[in-house]
């Protein structure tokens, strides 16, 4: 679904992405782990279109999206969540999702009929909310949600774009044990319909979710394999799992 082909990126003399290649097959969850400063965020920016690569390509569902802007990549099927939760705080939970549904359902250059009254948008949004378990929160302002609920709302917003791939940027960040467990269950359930690229610090989550793990160190992928292979890989251990994980 997603293929990254020998991506390179320099900031001046600093090489932040060195010949990165990876791919996510349908039904698969591919995790990228690595210490701080390894270039994970730069990689995410290049996939989502915030930054342009110096060389290499990003393919989404076989289509080269390397030169598309952020919103065009979303329209092409890239759904993402943010490391720091990002929702529309003054909108209701339902309207957050309905606004994302709207982007994929007909033109938004409509100026006179009420958007909140569009039953098809609301029904689709409601269905997605019940899928992530937020339907009882639908009418609350998004700003009222707890941190864990915001994480779920972000996933709902990403799902509303019927993505070909979910790019999850540290979805577990700041979550407690029980909230993490809820989210891991949800992602496990979604995995069959939505291939995922998971960038995560939380090793429990990575080992429970990922089919394949890539270890990114100093802008370079130093190890790749199943979670158990990576756990045993000496290079990965040295770079990342260092302190006896």
């Amino acid at each position: 679904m997603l293929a990254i082909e020998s991506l390179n990126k320099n900031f001046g003399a600093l090489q932040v992405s060195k010949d990165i290649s990876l791919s996510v097959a349908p039904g698969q969850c591919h995790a990228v782990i690595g210490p701080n400063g390894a270039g994970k965020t730069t990689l995410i920016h290049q996939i989502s279109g915030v930054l342009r690569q110096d060389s290499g390509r990003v393919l989404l569902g076989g289509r080269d999206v390397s030169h598309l802007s952020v919103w065009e990549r979303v329209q092409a099927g890239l759904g993402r969540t943010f490391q720091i939760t990002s929702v529309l705080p003054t909108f209701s939970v339902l309207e957050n999702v309905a606004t994302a549904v709207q982007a994929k359902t007909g033109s938004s250059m409509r100026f006179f009929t009420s958007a909140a009254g569009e039953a098809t948008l609301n029904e689709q949004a409601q269905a997605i909310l019940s899928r992530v378990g937020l339907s009882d929160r639908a009418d609350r302002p998004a700003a009222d949600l707890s941190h864990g609920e915001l994480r779920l709302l972000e996933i709902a917003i990403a799902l509303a774009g019927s993505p070909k791939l979910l790019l999850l940027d540290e979805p577990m960040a700041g979550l407690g044990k029980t909230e993490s467990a809820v989210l891991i269950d949800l992602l496990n359930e979604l995995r069959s319909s939505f291939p995922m690229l998971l960038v995560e610090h939380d090793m429990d989550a990575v080992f429970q979710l990922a089919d394949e793990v890539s270890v990114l160190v100093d802008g370079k992928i130093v190890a790749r394999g199943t979670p158990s292979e990576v756990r045993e890989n000496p290079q990965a251990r040295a770079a990342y799992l260092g302190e006896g994980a």
Partner: protein
Amino acid sequence: MMDRGALIGGMIFALLLAMPVLLPILGAGYLTGLLIKAMLLAIAAISLDLIIGHGGMVSLGHAAFIGVGAYATAIGLESGIEEILLLLVITLAVTGGIALITGMLALRTSGVYFLMITLAFGQMIYFTLTSLAAYGGDDGLTLWSLATLFGSDIVQEGEGLYFFVLAALFLSWFSVWRISQSRFGRVLRAARDNPQRAEVMGYPIVRYQLIAYVIAACIAGVSGLLLVQYAEFVSPSIAAWQRSGDLIVAVVLGGLGSRNGAILGAFFIVIMEEFLSSIFHEWRLIYGPLLVILVLYAKGGLNDLIHPKSREAS
């Protein structure tokens, strides 16, 4: 649940509709002119609320579009065009065109930089108007002929003009409210709330912001057209940045992004100015602190005082 925003809006318009009958009975017919002034300010404030309240784009150059509309009309009249609907088309084309070009450049920025660049464009327009020597330059231009509606002079003064301005106010109020609730308005509000998020929902947000900016400029231009018709005079001072400041005060005072706030704010300003300046020469000494108190204690603006928690943006 009753829609109180619509109810209050309906009451405002019913009252304005009744004024030409009520005022002479009260022996206050001379206030018609004041009401027209307030309605003209309200039209411009409503348009500014589309970009500030709903779009989150704080422009300090909005009055320049009133000036552009007024000068487009005045120059049209001087050239012998008297049909008001034709002048309207000219006004919309000129203000819309200028807004499209300045907006494309201004929207490369946001926040305080957007404020500065709109101020700069506004001042450029202001100084361009002062340099129009053939049309009065600094001193402005008195118009000897006014616009007609299908050849009739009904829209030139008195009740005819009053109702024409009222109709324009109603159309602006109704359109901006409908736009704010539409699919387009929803994207605009999403981009105000969190531009990054709106973009990652798949929206090219600058395109939406630019269209809103052009629509707002066009409505402000119409306010300029009507101002010429009312004042029979045009001068660059209507495009000065202080006038843009007044518009921001009207919008914030009324309640950002609320259905009736811009009208309430504009009427409050015009009426307070008239009232305070008639009883006290140094009236600004009262007006200033009054604004401070209102902004501190009525954060949702006058609209919230009448109708708490009515912000349409939720």
